[in-house]
């Protein structure tokens, strides 16, 4: 009896262990990497761990963090959104134009958010209703359309000198904390609740885990996908408000290539390109890893060209870890059968 129980326990232990360890690694691996990096930089540079500099890293990561959050939703559904950088640029220009036309800051912000959301929703509609083969296609189209419109509307020139009450959202601070940091933390908390505590959020994971099974379970897959792309566009618009405020201008080339940084942050943060997996906090950590990497290499006087190279290597390593994890699970499944 006793022996039976203990062997049963061993069985359970054997069954549980990889299932427990692998998700834990996925969950805390990025955080561990961030802490190790920060520790190393603290030793290497006396300037790294100062209140000033840490706030600086957060502030510089804010826009990427917002784009990455939208990208996270999309990647959880096993999709991709290439248009967020261009939507960011277009929304910067639009916000600046509306302000220059005399619109009050609050109305301009609301309009910009609405337009960004509508552009994202267009991506979702094109993908689901036209049955385009992969979200790569509509978002690639939108990437070019939005960038083109940004250039057309601005004539290719930055639109500078924006009103103070608008700039507050990108350049201001509350109690010593920069507004972008406050916005990112609030938005991240809201999206954490959205993804984990609402049925729509859970549906998004289900769709990425197995679209067919989700559909046959009665989940309105198309509507959820449209929501996801709309939110991604809306978050890009929010990023635009912060960026335009901080730069005090609407620059039509803002956010060129930013979609790739956003994807990188999501992947480094432990989300899976296969869909169905990824967390809000992981993505924040992913965005911070990229911020710390850039900031640290700056402090160490490494050329900006090398920063890009290093980030490229980190992306590949992060995805490779994901592949290893996936293969470990596959093997486990075969073995169990």
């Amino acid at each position, binding site marked *: 009896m006793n022996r039976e129980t203990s062997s049963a326990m061993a069985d*359970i232990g054997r*069954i*549980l262990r990889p*299932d427990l360890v692998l998700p834990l690694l996925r969950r805390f691996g990025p955080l561990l990497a961030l802490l190790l990096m920060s520790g190393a930089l603290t030793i290497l540079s006396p300037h790294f761990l100062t209140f000033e500099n840490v706030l600086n890293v957060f502030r510089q990561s804010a826009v990427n963090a917002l784009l990455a959050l939208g990208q996270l939703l999309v990647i959880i559904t096993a999709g991709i959104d290439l248009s967020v950088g261009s939507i960011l640029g277009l929304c910067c220009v639009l916000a600046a134009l509306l302000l220059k036309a005399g619109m009050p800051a609050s109305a301009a912000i609301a309009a910009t958010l609405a337009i960004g959301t509508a552009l994202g929703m267009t991506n979702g509609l094109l993908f689901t209703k036209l049955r385009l083969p992969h979200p790569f296609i509509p978002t690639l189209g939108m990437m070019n359309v939005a960038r083109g419109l940004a250039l057309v509307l601005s004539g290719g020139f930055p639109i500078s000198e924006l009103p103070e009450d608008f700039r507050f959202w990108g350049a201001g601070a509350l109690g010593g904390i920069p507004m972008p940091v406050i916005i990112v933390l609030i938005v991240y908390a809201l999206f954490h609740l959205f993804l*984990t*505590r*609402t*049925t*729509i*959020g*859970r*549906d998004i*994971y*289900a769709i990425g*885990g*197995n679209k*067919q*099974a*989700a*559909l*046959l*379970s*009665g*989940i*309105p897959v198309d509507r959820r996908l449209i929501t996801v792309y709309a939110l991604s566009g809306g978050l890009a618009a929010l990023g635009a408000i912060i960026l335009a405020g901080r730069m005090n201008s609407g620059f039509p080339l803002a956010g060129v290539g930013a979609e790739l940084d956003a994807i990188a942050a999501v992947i480094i943060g432990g989300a899976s390109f296969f869909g*169905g*997996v990824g967390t809000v906090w992981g993505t924040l950590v992913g965005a911070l890893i990229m911020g710390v990497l850039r900031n640290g290499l700056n402090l160490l006087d490494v050329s900006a060209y090398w920063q890009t190279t290093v980030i490229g290597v980190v992306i590949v390593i992060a995805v490779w870890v994901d592949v290893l994890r996936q293969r470990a*699970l596959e093997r*486990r*499944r075969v073995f*169990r*059968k």
Partner: protein
Amino acid sequence: MSSSEALLRLEGITKTFGGIVALEDVDFEVKAGEVHALIGENGAGKSTLMKIATGVHSADRGRLLWKGRPVKLQTPRDAHRLGIRMVHQELMLIPQLSIGENIFLGRPPSRRAVFSWVQWNEIYERARRLLQGLGHDLDPRRPAGELSVAEQQLVEIARALAFEAELLILDEPTSPLSEPEAERLFQTIAQLRARGMGVIYITHRMPEIYRIADRVTVLRDGRRVLTKSISETSAEELVRAMVGRELTEYFPEREPRAIGEPRLRVEGLTAPGRFYDITFTVHHGEIVGLAGLVGAGRTELVEALFGAREYTSGKIFIEGRPVTIRTPADAIRHGMALVTDDRKAKGLIPMASVQVNLILPVQARVAHLGFLVNTRAERHLTERLLSELRVKTPSAHHPVMFLSGGNQQKVILARWLAMHPRIFLMDEPTRGIDVGAKMEIYELIRRLAAQGTAILLVSSELEELRHLADRILVMHRGRIVGELQREEATDDRILYLATGGEG
């Protein structure tokens, strides 16, 4: 012909997969210039045997003789080199490439050994000759994707000839073909036989065996039960050999059940290419079986009823009222549930936990205000359903993919039970699961019917249908070709209808 030596001979073939015996001590041979039909129910071992003959699997025991010499086939390439070619049910042409390229794919004609430009003219010329030799005038420059299924089959056969195959294996080649196309294929096969080629012909259709085969072998449950010359056997004998007799003890006596008013009525439902003019009714507390061969259109039909596939005409009534079902969400709103035929692809989110999978369709119903996840209600519901269906899992948070097939299937059933469906569509609910879980699922199906649920049960296991169903509808090539009351449903009759015999 009878005196000639066998082209390919398989002796004492045994093959097991993870402890399950797929083939046991099977002998099979085919001679040059012979068409040997291989028949048996789904899962009888036909495809495993052919995979061994084509080097996809290797046998645990037994040997292969090619023209009398023992050979070892490690890979499909080895089989190709000997001259064994198989035309699969799913045709394997590359649609973007031309017919000629497809025929010579993997071994283009070339002048020199090391490097040669593609010899387009030669490819097309030789392809044309091969096709003409088979009695067809297809332009080898056309892309394969433009061809009809029958023409694609022909290209595959030409491909086998291009590689100088001496043995051709055809896996249910006529299932996607129209009658005249099938007739042309038979002529082609007769021609190949006349040239001295050996042909193994896998089929489900009785009349075809008599039309083209010289000999027939029947497999059942991984054993060879009969090999005879066609002239010495009858259709009845073959059906009996395919079906066999056993297993009856699984099914306890049925308690009488009250069958009530019509609950689901389908009228003239049609989706061209999949199913045509489907009309039937399922009543309160009734189990209606849907029999048919693989590809008869049963899965397509139930998925269309559930809003997961489109149909072009016809009406669906629930409780006498016409309903519009465009998406699975609509179907669920009307009290329907569907257990899909493919757990992995359509049922489960493999990497997610048991609880997530269980709660999938119910989540919104138990949520606060319809959208805030109600963790406590979900946990309670999960615990209740897991114990009600006796699902064996280390915990509710265990990834569902690590459960056994039977327990995975119970998770799917449990998911729908929480919704209290009034109409339950079940597509192969016991496929690939162990006997114990099977019996529990049978019991559950009966209990649901006793509670008044209308059940449409698709199954390829005739035993299962005969014992569970009150009535059995039989589909053949997308149409309902017969309806049998419980008392008159014998395996022979079901199979006869399902293989295209007249009611």
